[in-house]
Each structure stands twice: as structure tokens, then as C-alpha cells.
């Protein structure tokens, strides 16, 4: 097929893409002046834009909304009765520590997603897009780096703790991918060399000597990019910033406050990273796929989450970071209001909850609701796209701005979701 479009120069090609995208996709495309307006629109005064950093606590497996943030009293109640809190809301009976912090959180009880499958549900909660076999979408931290740039010369802009894979930088260059940390106690991987200080330096010197002829001959940008990555890495290895990844710098009392589990340790590390300037930290914690004996599972996993989350909020408050740090809790879906034959709950994307704290959101606030038994959204439904766009807006990202992938397809932060500005103080 002949495609005259290909013969156009880059500038007219871009122009055309923008125009066509506007015409055929109904997306808003911004002129230079519009951009400034839109940035203001995305983050009107007092409506988002206050979060310099985000800690995204991701509860992998599907967190039961009824047992945590949206308690019920009827048939679907579960093992524990709802409890009163310091905020104007009731919480699930397992949330005893969070009850004391409820005046600092906004609970969104009207989340609704389209997929009840773990992988797809996780993907959309982290990117705002349904998974496709033809493109990978960027995670929120990568979007932030795309718009706001790097946070420091040595530290990564976004970090994922305990997460494994994930969408990463998506169609952005790999340099925008979050740096993964498997075990919070071990910190950043591969920073310890087999050779000690002097020997390591000697190795670097040898490498440079042996490589000099090649580097002289090949001055291509690919080779240069690698030279730069080696320089950056050496800078990081010599930098004080490395301590940001080192939990041994924390005292015992603080460690105990957060709890010894993966989530507690992850939350503590997240606070250290944010304190040192990392912009986006995701902490992934599993154990939420509670098909069997949900009461036991909630006591264990839910209890640890309650402790860690509450500790994080208190600690951020103590260090003066809470106003500029948004803490978000999400999960791929909720769990069935009805208890199943194995005393558990199954996957339930139709209605579930997410939580926001700090970073300019209201305290003691509940947005949206479900019906009496928690099976349906009753009021102010929030889609996953809205949820992701809201996180973007909290950070001041231009969520309406269309960004084109290298393949020429148009994308926005949160797939055109509507920002839930009502939760911002």
C-alpha cells in the first residue's frame, strides 16, 4: 500500500499525527499555550499537584474491600465487626491501627474494574491501560519521569520494592524504568563488589585501558550512552545516596513500629527513599488472594498491612513529609461479598476500595459508596483510569496531554480517566 505520509518530514508528520489524533480519537491535543492552561487545569490551586513524591502500596492478589475499607454489617460482614475510627468513617475490624490514622486518609469506596484476572487487573492498576499484545504502557513512575525529568544525578526517579516484573518504562526508553528492589533488607542489588575498594578501582582502570582503542574508533551514540551509564554507576557507588537504600541505618524502635514483614520493611525503605528524593516508590505485598479461610488470612496479612500503613503515615507526619508525599493503596480488585464454601472470598472487580493519604488529599474523608451488602457501586463510581489519572494529577502531571509512542500511537496518563478532584483538600 502506498503511503504518501511516510515521505513527509518529521515536523509535518508530527503535526499530522496530532491533527488526525484529534479528529479521529476525540482526544484533546494541545498547542503550546494550551499546554500551560492544561497543566493548570490538571492541577488547579488546592486541587492536586502537591505531591512531590508518591508511595504506591500495591496489595497483590485482590484485597477484600469489606474486611478493610468498606465494612458491612449484614450477611456479607465477615468474621469481624466494623470499628469506629478517629475519622468520620467506620473501618473493617482488622484495621485497628489505621483507625487511629483515619483522620489523615481518604477512602474511595466506589472503585470498579472490568477484569477479574490477576495479571490483567494488576497491569491496568499500574498503567491505566488494558493489556494489549501490541504495546506495553508505561507505569506511573515512568510517566512522571517523562514529564518531570530525573530527580537526581545518582538516585533513580522511581523504585519498585518487592515487585518483580511489571510494565516498567513501557514504550519509554529503559532509562525511565523503575529500579527494582527484591528484598528491602538487602537494598539495591549488586552494589557490593567482589573486589574491595582499591582492587575495584584497579579493575575499572584496566577496563578503561583495554577499551580505549575501541572507544576511539566507535564514537556512536550507542557506545557513548554505555560510557555514560558506567560513569553514572560509578558515581552512584561512591555516593552517600547509596545509604538511602540501607535499612540498617534505621533504629530498632522505628523498625518495630513498621513490623518485620515484607510490607513493613518495604514501607520503611519507601520512606527512606522519599526522604532522599526518590519521586515514585511502589511497594508490592502479596498474600491477598484469600480464597480460603479469609479470617485467618486477614488476621495475618491484613494485620501486618494495618501496622505498616499506619506506621508509614505517622512516620511521614513526624518527618514533615506527609503534606508533600501521597500514599496510595490499591489492589487489582476486591473480593466477593459472599463468603464461599471454603470460608474465603473470590475475585470481585465490580466494587472495591482504594485509599489515599497525604500529598494534599482530604483527611477523614470517604468518596463514593457501595450498596448495603457491598456488591454494587451505589454512588460516584471511580474507574481504574480515573484512579490512575488522579494519582497523576496529585503529582501535577498534565494528564490530558497526549504523548505518542514510537509507533505513533497516542496515550495519556490514565487513559483519559477523569481526575477525582473532590478528594483534594
Amino acid at each position, binding site marked *: 500500500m502506498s*503511503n504518501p505520509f*511516510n515521505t513527509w518530514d518529521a515536523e509535518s508528520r508530527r503535526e499530522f499525527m496530532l491533527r488526525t489524533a484529534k479528529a479521529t480519537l476525540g482526544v484533546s491535543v494541545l498547542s503550546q499555550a494550551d499546554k500551560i492552561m492544561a497543566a493548570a487545569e490538571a492541577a488547579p490551586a488546592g486541587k492536586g499537584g502537591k505531591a512531590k513524591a508518591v508511595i504506591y502500596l500495591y496489595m497483590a492478589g485482590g484485597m477484600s474491600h469489606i474486611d478493610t475499607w468498606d465494612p458491612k454489617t449484614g450477611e456479607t460482614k465477615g468474621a469481624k465487626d466494623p470499628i469506629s475510627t478517629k475519622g468520620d468513617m467506620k473501618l473493617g475490624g482488622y484495621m485497628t491501627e489505621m483507625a487511629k490514622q483515619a483522620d489523615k486518609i481518604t477512602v474511595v469506596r466506589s472503585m470498579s474494574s472490568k477484569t477479574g484476572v490477576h495479571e490483567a487487573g494488576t497491569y491496568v492498576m499500574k498503567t491505566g491501560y488494558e493489556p494489549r499484545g501490541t504495546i506495553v504502557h508505561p507505569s506511573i513512575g515512568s510517566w512522571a519521569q517523562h514529564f518531570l525529568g530525573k530527580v537526581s544525578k545518582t538516585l533513580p526517579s522511581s523504585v519498585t520494592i518487592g515487585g*518483580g516484573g511489571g510494565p516498567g518504562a513501557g514504550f519509554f526508553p529503559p532509562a525511565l524504568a523503575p529500579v527494582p528492589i527484591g528484598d528491602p533488607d538487602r537494598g539495591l542489588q549488586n552494589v557490593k563488589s567482589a573486589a574491595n575498594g582499591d582492587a575495584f578501582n584497579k579493575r575499572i582502570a584496566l577496563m578503561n585501558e583495554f577499551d580505549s582503542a575501541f572507544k576511539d574508533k*566507535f564514537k556512536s551514540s550507542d557506545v557513548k550512552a554505555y560510557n555514560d551509564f558506567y560513569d553514572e554507576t560509578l558515581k552512584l557507588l561512591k555516593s552517600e545516596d547509596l545509604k538511602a537504600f540501607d535499612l540498617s541505618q534505621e533504629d530498632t524502635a522505628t523498625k518495630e513500629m513498621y513490623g518485620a514483614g515484607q510490607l513493613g520493611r518495604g514501607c520503611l525503605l519507601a520512606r527512606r527513599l522519599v526522604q532522599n528524593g526518590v519521586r515514585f516508590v511502589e511497594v508490592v505485598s502479596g498474600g491477598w488472594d484469600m480464597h480460603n479461610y479469609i479470617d485467618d488470612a486477614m488476621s495475618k496479612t491484613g494485620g501486618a498491612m494495618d501496622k505498616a500503613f499506619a506506621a508509614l503515615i505517622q512516620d511521614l507526619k513526624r518527618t514533615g513529609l506527609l503534606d508533600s508525599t501521597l500514599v496510595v493503596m490499591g489492589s487489582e480488585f476486591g473480593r466477593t461479598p459472599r463468603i464461599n464454601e471454603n470460608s474465603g472470598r473470590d475475585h470481585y472487580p465490580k466494587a472495591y476500595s482504594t485509599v489515599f493519604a497525604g500529598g494534599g488529599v482530604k483527611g477523614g474523608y470517604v468518596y463514593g459508596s457501595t450498596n448495603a451488602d457491598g456488591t454494587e457501586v451505589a454512588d460516584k463510581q471511580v474507574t481504574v483510569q480515573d484512579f490512575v489519572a488522579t494519582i497523576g494529577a496529585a503529582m501535577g502531571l498534565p494528564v490530558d496531554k497526549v504523548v505518542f509512542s514510537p509507533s*505513533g500511537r497516542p496515550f495519556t496518563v490514565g487513559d483519559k480517566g477523569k481526575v477525582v478532584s473532590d478528594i483534594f483538600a
Partner: protein
Amino acid sequence: MKTHKYLLTGISAVALAVMSANAGESRAWTDIQGRKVQAAFIKLDGETIYLQTADGTVYPIPLSRFSAEDQALAKTLKPADDANILAQVPTNATAAQAAQKIDQLVKMGLQRGNLKMAEEYKKTAAEELKAGKQPKPYKPLVENPKCSDEQFVRRVYVDIAGRIPSYEETTAFLKSSSSTKRAELIDKLLDSDGYASATYNYFADMFRIKDKFDGADFVRGLPYTQWLKEQITKNQPWNKIAYEMITANGKVWNNGAAGYLLRDSGMPLDNLANTLTVFLGTDVACAQCHDHPFTDWTQKQFYEMASFFGATTTRLNGKDFANGDPGKKLIDDMVYQIEKVGKDPKQLRNLIGNVIGANRYEVRDRETNSMKLPHDYKYKDASPNDPVAPKLIMWSPKDKENPAYKAVDAELGVKTASTSTSKGAVSKATAAKKAKDAASMAKNSEGLRDTFGKWMVHDQNPRFAMTIANRMWARAFGLGLTQSVKSIDNVDESSNPELLRHLAAEMVRLKFNLKDFMRVVYNTQAYQREATTEDLAMGAPYYFQGPVLRRMSAEQAWDSYMTLVLGEGLDKLKNTQADPYGRAIDMDLEKTTVQTLSSKITALQNLNAEAQKKMGGSLADAGAKPKGSKADDDMMMEDKIVNYDGMKLMRASELEQPAPPGHFLREFGQSERLVGDSNSKAGSVPQVLTLMNGKAQAMLTSKESLIHRTLKTAKDAAEKTEMVFLSILSRHPTLREKDIAKKEIQAHGDEGYSNMIWALINTREFTFLQ
């Protein structure tokens, strides 16, 4: 002679060198600048004249390049009797002959490029003069010099066998005095196991092959992987492989080719978008959701193509069994049995469900084509949810006459309802017509995939041969003839359209034999030149003055590490999990009893333990024994897989697909296999940390590693240094490097070798392939 420089040089040089027998038929052709060349007229094809020089080579040259008289003459001349054959490579040409033809086309492309660039230069030079600047003289692009044997041996091992050559392999090649040693090495490597492994890695990235299929915990990619490796090993022609994948039926463990559709179970539209991209170089992913904004593809066309798969299911449900889905009853019976022996079924319930569930994943054609337009279809030529009849896309109106289409037209005519599909035609179907269409489609759902498959792999399909030829070319040169191998939008906009068309013709001439095709490509002078040193301007055409400098892929780097710890024996270690897995999980749900189910579950639970039995040994005995030690073979008896700090020491192609997050392979850019062709060659800080301090690095510098053990066989420090350089960089150290090495060893003794190994592995020279 110098005046001939950029125009007809390709011909003139040859023509003047070899004036011989055929000269009688040839005449002097004159170009627009009055330069002459002696050649015989073959044919005029559109705007291209084909001329044959005295040595028998045929060159295509644009008509406009000739003087007015010669242009007029060309239009009156009769084509040579054997014109069409002459313009091609003879059917039984040797690899060397076929390579020569490609080199001529590369040369012509370079000349055309120079003409274009000289034009542009004139413009900028004039502007600079106006601005009072003295423009730099125009430097025409020239072919890179022939690469050295050291460069060649490394490049060809990495490209064909997917790894660097061992010390022995390198020295053997460098020492050989055979005048045809390059061609011999190419032949040897194409016949090696390494070829299959490396080619598999390329396709695994392209096809997004995974061990764990999304959404179905127990349907694994192992049999699909094994099937593909078998096809590559037996050098099954590409058109047969592709046809099998599109038309396969059954469960993945009974027919590995079915893995292609099962990989995307539940997302057939994504699968189709990928099919069009990987097999036909046509990027229509946009049209899945709306009319393509930049090209003429419409959403309706996309659904018409999808309709060829509209009767196909990848997951059976109640309708597909004579008496409904037997799975539910099986689970209940099993749970009852477990409870009867006093055990708690809760823990086993998921497992039972997964085993049964996996047996519902099967490619099968149903009796009804259920393809419908989406519920939010918004164009005027049809209504949402309308049934869609299958229809083939065309790249040009001329395709109507193409035999690939004609061959299937008849079949389609019988099989499908009539369709009116021209863009913009408004025809709201009435309910009655819809019902009729649906009924008609239902009747004609048979063999749709077969029809599509035949058209797709047809010799004359406008894109099929060209797409794979372009991809294979890009594998060798680091760049395809189009900006992206995923999209050949307009052949004429390629950096060398004649070459692209020729490569497609070669693919057909060679009957889609990929090995023979690559043999031709690797034997070209163009491939055997030095890599281009300067940066390529973004989007600027590349004229293949040599291959481009490429970073090793993640698999090539890992397999090169494996060569350093396992030696040449690395290909003995294979992933053998596919068959035991298939045997363990396979059930006929309609005939399975609780007893069978129970034994299946036991077998599945034992799979891991069975796989563990293949593991054993340590780094200290990994790889061939150093020369001179006795009983080489005895020590190698079982070829156990060594586990070094959690890493299985075997080729990337034999490991989990893709490797788990955090593995060296993933850190170095192996694709997550969500999207095709996603292996990354970009760096990052965590990646460099892995290269500096990772487990793989610790393994290589360990005194137990094969490379260290091999050093012990050297007679002195100088020879050891030679060995380290030849083992890692496939070249001798320079005098300066020998000197640095000497000092290092004097200062640090044995540790000095570890330091050198570390340093060399971390050089850009190791990572980038020149």
C-alpha cells in the same frame, strides 16, 4: 575514468575489466552527462532498464539516467528472449553467485545514495557560499574495508551460533590458511546446534514466546518452544512453519504449533495484529479499535481479516462437548473421593481445577463463524455487532490479479457471504439481510484458517517472502531495508527498493529455506566488511557499506558467558521438560475417571522432582576438561546442569521463557515477551551494576571457572594473556595491552587474571559486535 565516478561506475568498472565474448551484442550506452558504458539490452520494465555487462551480470538502472536518444531507443528495443530469467539469479546458483548479485545491488544502492547526497550537498554548499563560508568538499560514501579475520570469526559466531567463539575455535580459524575459510566456517556454523538456538531466540522474541500463558496457570509454552526448535533444527521452510502455526488444531502438548494461537487465547484480535506484523510486515494494530489514522486501513478491514479466525476457539466450553463440560462433575467426584479418605480437599481444589482447566485449552474450529463488529463500531458502512464475512486485505489495486489472491478467490467465493466493503459505502444492512448473512456465514465457516494460511504463505503474496527476507537481512546487518522490519509500508521508500525486491525473490527461489538464505547473506562482501563506525542520522537511509555496530542481545551475551564456563560442549545441555509435562497433563476430559485424574495430579506434582534429577555438579567441573587431562569423555558422561548461585548454566534458549525478573538475561534486555520484537539493547544503571557486580560476573572471575582452569595449561604469563584476550575478545592483545597485562600480573599474581577477565568482560568492545 574518473569522470564515471558516481553514476555508472558499478557497470563501467566491471565492463572495462572484462571485455569478452558477448561484446558483439552490446552497445555503448550514454548517460545524461555524456558518460558511456558498454552493455547489452535485456529489457525495459517500467522506468528501469536492465543491461547486461560482458561478464554476464545484469544491472537495473533508472531510465531517466540515460541520454534522450538512448531512452527513446530503449523504448523501441525488444526484450531479450530470456529477459526475465536473466534479471534474476539462476535457480541453481551457488551461495557465492547469489551473494555476488546482492553485492552488485548494494553497490548500486550506494551509488544512488551518493547521487542523492551529492545533490543535497550542492544545495547546502551554495547556501554556505552565499553566507560567506567555505563549504567542506563533498566526501562520497564508500564501502567499508573488508573486516579482519579476528573481527569476522567473532561476528559470525555471535550472529550464527549466538555466542562468541571459544579460544580453540578462534585460534583454529585464525591459523587456517584455506582461501575459502570464511565460507567454510559459515557452512559449519549453519549446521551447528548453535544456529538452531540463536535462530530460536530471534523468533521467541518476535513471537513473544512464554512458558506461562496468561490466565491459564497450567498451560505451558514448553511444547510450543520445543516444536519451534525442532522446525528450526530440521530447517523446515519458513512458509511451512508459518502455515502450520496458523492452521494447527489441538492441545499444545499434542501439537506444538497450536501454541501460536493458544499463546493469545482470549485475545484473538491481538493475535491477528501480531500475525499481520510478524508474517506480513503490516502494522495495523491501530485498526483494531478505529480506522488507521495514517494509512488506508479501516477498522472494518481489520475485522474482515479477523473473520478468518471467527470460527476458531482456543478454549472449549460446554457447547464443545457432546454432553456438556465434563470438568465440573470430575472436580466434584474428586473432592468426594478425597473427603472419603478423610482428607481436606481445600488445598487440592485449585490444583484439580487447574489441571482440568488446562485440558480445555485447545484450538478447534466450530461450526459457526461468530465474528462480529465491535459493540461501539462508529463508521457508517456497517452497524455495531454486525456479522463480518472474511475478506483479504490488499496492498495495491494490482493485487487483485496476484495469483496469491486468485488461488483463494474461488474458495472464498464459495465459503463466504457476499460482502460490500469499500470504504465509505453506506449500506445499513436490514435485520433480514443480517440474519441471512449470519446463516450463510455459519454454513461457510469450514476451512477459513486454511484459506487464510494458504494466501498468507503463497509465493506471490505481496509481503510474506519480503517480510522474512527483510528480517533475516536485518539480523545480519543490524538494520533492515525499511525503517522498521515490522512495517514495510511502501517498498519504494526502502533505502534500496531493488535490493528489497531481490531479497524477496531470493527467498522464493530458495523455497523459504532460511539456512540457505542466510548462507547467501553471510557470504556477501557487504556482510564481511567492517562495521560502520560513525553514527547513523536518525531516520536517514542506510546504504549497507557494511554491517552497523550492534550491541549483543541479552541471549548472545549470556550464551557467550556460557561459552566461557561450559566451553564448546554447551549445546549438549537441552531443556527436556516438554514431553514429561505433556504426558503428565494430557487428559481426554470426556473419558477421564477419578483414578486417572488422581494419577495425573501425582505426575504433575512430581515434575519438579524429575527436573531436579537433571541438575548436579559445580562450576569447578562445568565444561570440558582442559586439554591434557585424562578421561575427557568419562567426566562428561551425564551432562548434568550446574546450578551456580541460583542460575542454571545452560543456553538462554533452554532456560525458562522469558527468564525470571532479576536474571542476567532480563537485566541485559531480554523481552518480557508481552510485545513482539521487544528485546532491548539500551543500558541502565541497574544493568551496569549487574555487569560489574552480578552473580554472572562472580562466576566468570571465579578461579573454578573453565576459563581460569584453561589458563593453567598455558606455559607462561605471556601465553596466558594471549588466552584471556582470545577467549574473551577473540583477538590477540596489542603490544601495549601485553605490557599492561604484564604489569598487572606482576603486581597481583593469579588475581591479576581475574582482574583482566573482569575488565575485558566489562569493555564496550566485548558488548558491541563490530
